[in-house]
């Protein structure tokens, strides 16, 4: 199922005019705050009625200004995962999980409570009240509650933003599983690049209330022209496969014939992964560096060079079919005579890739 969203809405001094498609898997609405992400989620959830447009999936119409159609929020069959879990404090975890099932029509696909509880690892919490849960546990229950409502669409509005790094790392794998195991489209709002790189199937980059780019995650992220969060957090995603683990805390991953030494991952050899590499962690050299502490030196080809307004330049590099970005100064770009087609060496420190920047590759949609 694919959700088509196209609408325009005006606020005081700000207007949103967007059109995009959200296929199965996780479609991340990506951009800085004020880009219009929450407006889109509100419009899809029915908490905001846009001036004009259409939000629908084939004959399932949530909003159509031309036809005068408007489905109220409680009839939209959504699973909305909020930033602040919003569990009902007077109900037990089990009752919270079952809340949406209560209102789901008989025809709705029934998710099996036991399966979801198992998937989220919340079996031991069922009899507790939300007040007795940690932040990460609350968010897991909130995910379960959304899934069990038998939704036709899942909305997640920065579901990890309120959690610390450790809790984020605890929840992210559940979104990866959700992406691969749930057949309905998931709209996911985020402004954290590493998080997006890990879970996104499709990315809709937003800026100033407009869609600046949309497409498969790897394509959008490695485009040097698209930096929804600014150049400092730009980066690219590389698909790799676990090759072997070492006993000094590192793992070797293989990507497009090249080896990457990275902090140890938990997945077994052979597991396909995606690795988020930040542009500012990549250094360039025209000759193979010697006597350098960085463990990864890749032979790459410059594909595109994009000079910024400031002192920086964004360089898109390729090795095999993989694309990465490097952020260097314009001065260096000139000194190294970087230009499309030129062969250079990209240097990447193993420790600069954070553990939570490595996630499992989405299974190909069936």
């Amino acid at each position, binding site marked *: 199922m694919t959700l088509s969203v196209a609408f325009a809405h005006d606020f005081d001094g700000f207007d949103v005019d967007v059109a995009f498609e959200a296929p199965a898997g996780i479609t991340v609405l990506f951009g800085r705050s004020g880009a219009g992400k929450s407006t889109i989620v509100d419009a899809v959830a029915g908490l905001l009625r846009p001036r004009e447009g259409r939000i629908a999936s084939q004959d399932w119409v949530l909003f159509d200004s031309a036809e005068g159609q408007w489905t109220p929020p409680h009839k939209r069959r*959504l699973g909305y995962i909020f930033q602040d879990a919003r569990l009902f*404090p007077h109900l037990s975890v089990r009752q919270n999980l079952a809340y949406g099932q209560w*209102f789901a029509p008989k025809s709705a696909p029934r998710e099996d409570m036991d399966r979801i509880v198992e998937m989220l690892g919340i079996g031991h919490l069922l009899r507790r009240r939300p007040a007795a849960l940690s932040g990460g546990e609350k968010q897991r229950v909130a995910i379960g509650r959304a899934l069990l409502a038998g939704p036709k669409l899942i909305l997640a509005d920065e579901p990890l933003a309120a959690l610390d790094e450790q809790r984020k790392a605890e929840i992210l794998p559940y979104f990866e599983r959700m992406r691969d195991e749930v057949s309905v489209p998931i709209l996911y709002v985020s402004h954290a690049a590493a998080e997006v790189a890990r879970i996104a199937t499709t990315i809709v980059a937003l800026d100033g209330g407009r869609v600046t780019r949309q497409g498969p995650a790897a394509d959008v992220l490695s485009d040097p022209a698209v930096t929804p969060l600014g150049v400092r957090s730009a980066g690219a995603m590389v698909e790799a496969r676990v090759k072997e683990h070492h006993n000094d805390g590192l793992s070797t991953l293989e990507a497009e014939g090249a080896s990457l030494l990275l902090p140890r991952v938990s997945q077994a050899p052979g597991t396909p992964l995606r690795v988020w590499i930040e542009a500012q962690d990549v250094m360039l050299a025209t000759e193979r560096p010697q006597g350098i502490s960085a463990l990864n030196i890749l032979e790459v080809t410059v594909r595109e060079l994009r000079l910024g307004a400031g002192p920086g330049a964004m360089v898109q590099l390729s090795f095999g079919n993989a694309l990465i970005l490097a952020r260097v100064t314009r001065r260096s770009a000139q000194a190294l005579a970087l230009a499309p087609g030129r062969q250079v060496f990209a240097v990447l420190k193993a420790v600069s890739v954070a553990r939570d920047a490595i996630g499992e590759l989405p299974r190909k949609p069936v």
Partner: protein
Amino acid sequence: MTDWLGPEEWRAVALSLKVSFWATLLSLPLGLWVAYLLARREFPGKQIVNGLVHLPLILPPVVTGYLLLTTFGTQGPIGGFLESFGVVFAFRWTGAALAAAVMAFPLMVRAIRLSIEAVDPKLEQAAGTLGASRVWVFLTITLPLILPGIIAGAILAFAKAMGEFGATITFVSNIPGQTQTVPSAIYAFLQVPGGEASAWRLVIVSVVVAMSALLLSEWLARRAAAKVGGI
């Protein structure tokens, strides 16, 4: 207790309890509705409704009583209309209950309204996205969460109704066994020589009822809050 209180005193106590019970019970649904409107809805004239609800709190009770007499008396526009259906307020215990309800209404609405305002609207929104209609959201989320406030409001209103004097005596007078509530009876006993002993017994009853109501509401509210808070 019937032995300790004289028949006239006992009648006053029984009447007060009956009047307060019905005044509280029947005004509760309306109080809940008005509190919800004031807390959660925007509509033209909201401030006027708010003012009207609070008016009995600020007006001299005798004024409220007189206004009730002119509207709900047998000659009054509403009283005359209701009389044709056999509902009479003037100089009946039902009138005392009406006066008590009107006087206690602001306290009840205030307590419930505060508790509704304390419920995070985001929870109600979340319930809505999970498929609950507005009515279901109210019944399954809002209502359980504001139960402590409803209990507190009802008990406060009951205690206020037990003590209502000015509006009651103006509206329905002071007829023993008919409209003579505890405060009216105390007042009446104080007007006759040798009535102090009876007055004192009713004073004690008043203090005990008021105190018990306060303690009970505290206890119930705390119990309900603990249940909601998951402790």
